[in-house]
């Protein structure tokens, strides 16, 4: 069976297949795209977006080193939890492309991964 896809409500509706659920876009979702070495951030409030970018730089640096130790290739998803909340990050299809959010509530790993579309 084809898996259910969740897409933003603003997208075109023509010929909608049965496995598509339309939802309002998540306002906390932050996206980072890197094109020709230039990083562009969209979504979330400015403070969280900047923090999210910082988290990604720090984690991806160590993740690359850890992946090398483990004989793996790349980081696919990450959840950082401290006493103030959770930062969730998922890698996009292109190199340097990430999306995720910063939340003050604590959710289970399973729930966070689901919210990341994994």
């Amino acid at each position, binding site marked *: 069976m084809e898996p259910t896809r969740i897409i933003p409500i603003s997208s075109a509706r023509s010929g909608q297949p049965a496995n598509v659920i339309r939802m309002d876009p998540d306002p906390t979702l932050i996206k980072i795209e890197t094109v020709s070495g230039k990083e562009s951030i969209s979504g979330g409030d400015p403070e969280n977006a900047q923090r999210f970018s910082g988290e990604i730089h*720090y*984690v991806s640096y*160590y*993740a690359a*080193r*850890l*992946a090398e*130790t*483990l*004989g*793996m*290739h*790349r*980081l*696919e*998803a*990450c*959840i*950082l*939890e*401290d*006493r103030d909340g959770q930062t969730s990050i998922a890698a996009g299809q292109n190199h340097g492309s990430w999306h995720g959010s910063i939340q003050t509530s604590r959710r*289970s*790993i*399973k729930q966070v*991964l689901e919210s990341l579309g*994994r």
Partner: protein
Amino acid sequence: MSLEPVISAAAALQRLDGVAGVLLFKGKHSIHRQMPFAESRAEELRERLEEMLAGYRQVRRRMRQIYLEFDGGVLLIVASEDVSLVFFLTAKADPDLAASAGSVLLSDHSAALAAASSEAKPASTGIEELFVTSPKALSQITDKAEPIVNQWGSVRKAVEGILGKVMGRGQASNLIDRTLEASQTKDPYRLPAAEVKKLAASILEHVPNTAKRRQLLTELEASLAELQL
């Protein structure tokens, strides 16, 4: 304060479904290390994770949990103060269950872990240092030198690791001690290589299940070959 109960508890976490490895460390001190790869690689992993966590501590950020999903597996780090418990998970694992079990372990053994040193344990070389104070000591050196240089320390570690697959770490350690006692070996470091091999195999002979015992003995042979015994 003894770390033996913490080690046993950490070794037991390996039995959770999908848990391929467990590493418990405090700074440079690897309290328990059971990873599905060479010790040097596990040590490198500890160093890199400690460096990453130290960065968070430097900015006074108290990380509780870090989940890192790579293309070939997951690293789940459950942290409390400067102690970190790392799970190496396969896709079969329930990361929430592992995280919860890890938090309970850190909380239950917080006193022992707080008292534990964060410095690396000196590696056991199996070589004694002798101070020569008189010419008479020369004969003692030649008497002692040859049999002392065996690798019992590494062999014991290998046997503990192998037994860890069928019993708890504390239980494995007790079994080794009991076998040593029963064999009336005064000092296993003085045994010649062939005797060390025999002793290691005799420990595994206590595993009641024939098929498992045979499998563990095969693993022991591979470990001993790695140690060039």
